[in-house]
């Protein structure tokens, strides 16, 4: 019950946060130099053409009216009409968010597992060869730009070895996967389309690996540092001195105490992973949320920029909320 009350309270706190984000984004995107109408009309449109287009998108209205219209739409889940495509932003978000979430969730999950296992293993062998090796690998992973890493993995995995499909989409179109959530693996399961499942999984390997390599390094370093702290703590030393079995020590004392930090770290990494998807999606022809938001920003597509910032803010807040709850479950000292 206490957790439910906490979640409820935090969800209520979301409202002013999101309202602030909405107001700021609405204003900031209009302060940026650049005219979205001119970017869609092409160079030979006249002023009358531009005026007609502005009227079509409601950009001829006073700012306060535009804001109220936008706010009214948000209440009903309507993010407006994209200036670039003329389509509903809500529908475009629905198409784009699934593939990106699938990519990010899988990458962050993989990175978390790898970071926890290797981080603890490394801390228990601190300053030995294995530990140094892992730290160097993590450093290298952290230093590699995702764009470059993606191209190298494609070159090796697709072009040289031929193990993975061409980087031109998320699933083989011939599998006729019916989109439901936009996350292809999930859709394949929901529609029991197993050829599509295999194809989507094969398409996911390289982009997930790229993103995971990039985000695993900071996670691994933090887990290792946390594990070292626990290993040197009085509680752990005392438990060891009492002659507890190594397995009990590892599971009950080291792993659980080390994991306490992981939820907050994972939440942070989740946010940075969403940012990294812009390049990863580009390299792998992923056509997800990151590419969509970037294009919106480049062309000052106001409704798209507004929607993408609000969604990213929402994702951040929700992920941190989940992290806090998990943290509380893992760490009995935390009261919520």
């Amino acid at each position: 019950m206490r957790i439910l009350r906490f979640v409820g309270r935090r969800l209520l706190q979301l409202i002013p946060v999101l309202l602030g984000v909405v107001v700021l984004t609405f204003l900031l995107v209009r302060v940026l130099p650049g005219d979205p109408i001119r970017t869609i009309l092409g160079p030979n449109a006249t002023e009358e053409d531009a005026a007609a287009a502005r009227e079509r998108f409601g950009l001829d209205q006073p700012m306060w009216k535009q804001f109220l219209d936008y706010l009214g739409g948000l209440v009903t889940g309507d993010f407006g009409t994209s200036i670039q495509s003329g389509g509903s932003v809500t529908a475009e978000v629905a198409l784009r968010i699934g593939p990106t979430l699938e990519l990010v969730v899988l990458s962050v999950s993989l990175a978390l597992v790898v970071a926890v296992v290797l981080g603890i293993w490394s801390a228990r062998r601190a300053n030995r060869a294995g530990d140094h090796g892992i730290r160097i690998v993590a450093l290298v992973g952290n230093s590699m730009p995702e764009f470059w890493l993606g191209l190298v993995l494609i070159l090796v995995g697709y072009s040289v070895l031929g193990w993975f499909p061409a980087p031109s989409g998320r699933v083989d179109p011939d599998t006729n996967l019916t989109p439901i959530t936009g996350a292809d693996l999930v859709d394949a399961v929901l529609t029991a389309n197993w050829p599509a499942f295999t194809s989507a999984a094969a398409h996911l390997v390289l982009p997930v690996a790229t993103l995971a390599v990039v985000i695993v390094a900071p996670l691994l370093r933090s887990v290792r540092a946390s594990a070292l702290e626990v290993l040197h703590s009085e509680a752990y030393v005392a438990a060891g001195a009492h002659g507890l079995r190594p397995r009990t020590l590892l599971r009950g004392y080291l792993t659980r105490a080390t994991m306490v930090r992981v939820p907050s770290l994972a939440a942070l990494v989740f946010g940075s992973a969403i940012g990294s998807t812009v390049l990863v999606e580009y390299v792998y022809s992923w056509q997800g949320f990151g590419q969509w938001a970037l294009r919106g920003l480049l062309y000052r597509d106001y409704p798209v920029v507004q929607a993408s910032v609000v969604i990213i803010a929402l994702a951040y807040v929700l992920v941190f909320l989940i992290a806090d709850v998990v943290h509380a479950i893992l760490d009995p000292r935390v009261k919520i």
Partner: protein
Amino acid sequence: MLQLGGSVALLLATGACAAGSQSGSSGRSADPAASTLRIAVSSYLSSWDQDFVGFDPTALMLYKNIFPYLVDYGVTEVSGSKILDTTNVMPTFAESFEPSADQKTWTLKLRKGVKFASGNEMTAADVKWSKDRAFAAKANVAGVYRTIGLTEPDQVRVVDDYTVEFAQAFPSALTPQIQAISLYVFDSVEAKKHATAADPWAQEWFAKNAPTGGYFNVTKATQGQEIVLEANKGYPGPEPAQTGTIRISVVPAAANQRLQLQNGDIDIALGVSRRDIADLKNVDGIKVISAASNDQVAIQMSVTTAPFNDVNVRKALAHAVPYEQIIANVYGGDARPTSSLVPLDMPGYDANGYPYKYDIEAARAALAAAGQTSINSELVFATDNDTQQQLAVLVQSEARKAGIELKLTPLDPATLAERRQQKNIPLQITSGQLWVNDVEYMLATSFVSGANLNYSNYTNPEIEQIYEQSHTTVDEAARRQLWTRVQQILAADVPWVIICQPNFNLPVREEVAGWVQPMDGLARLRYLTTSG
């Protein structure tokens, strides 16, 4: 519309060309081969609705192949390459398109029995509805129709079920070319089923649903990933599609397009960089099509912004640009030098139209004539355009020798569009091709007061007068005289530094044939064949 941005020019210069085309064949549709052609493009189209779409090169190329265009360019052969013939606009889905004696009224006659995918027959009502929609959209088509005296829906009249009249306010030599890029038709019977009081032109429906009835029909579109085109077997006119199926996949990264082409996973790569293309020339199984193109690269100088408001300063820059070095180093020798602001191959081109060569001494002298020994300016180019960046660096380095110090300023698309609109960029690199291969159109878009590609903010009373006169001058010899005078004036005023016309390069698998170089930059996929 009109001039294509630099970064997209390569993508659009997908020409088409023609080893297997049946130029001049008439009447019925051939039975297209059962072969499949795979093409990679850089982005998915933003909307299927041609009237209301933003400026989207991939979409515009696709429209050319899936909308029924009632008239289109023919094909001619130049130096062993097939190119679209802008002097020959011929009926395709239409039976005929002829002017009255005074050339003010053009009569379009439709073929009977032409059908959209819905089964609805294409009639005059579809043409009328489509043109009414274009006027209501107040976008691309409405814009170009102004140049031939079509400004009101009432000027498009239905005579009978298969005849439509276009009553222009004045006769125009541009009419065939303007109609070749504008006369596309929607299935109005189908459209009306999806129209509502709030959405009378069925915008919402057309944004998501591909048009039908063109050379190809879209049989499958996987959002963001792939579009499958099937040849329209009901096409009644000349030069039907030569390939049964075309699969268009979206591969944004140029490096990946290159890899897929090398691995044989695609047959044509429409978004590969110049550097990759140069490498691909030596790869087994791949050939690079190279064809002379009308893509122009220039530096537009603002004649109303200091220091380029002084013609001598403009002449100084024109002498300080290393033309041959740019062709050699930036384009690998694969570009044509040009001597006029009128593009090479455009009717009326005069080789005396740009008498400026790389000569640092002459540049210094011109600067001295302006009473200056050194000047500063920014040189703006598109932030995502590697070629423009290389070019800017070379110009910066040579101009410095003449006392012209340039600060390189890359701008993102929206900022560039806004600053262009404000006409406050002193120097900017432009590249692109005109969609209509005619000097009158070039003046309308680039050199008369208020023209939207006139980033130089250039005006000259005599050019304005010639432009007005050209509207109603339909005699070819008289037009040529006007164009000669235009080039003399531009040579004296130097609003642009004209750098070169890069050739069109396209890497394809060996089995691909049939490219026709498109003079409007929009590939005609119907000519393509593959034996693979």
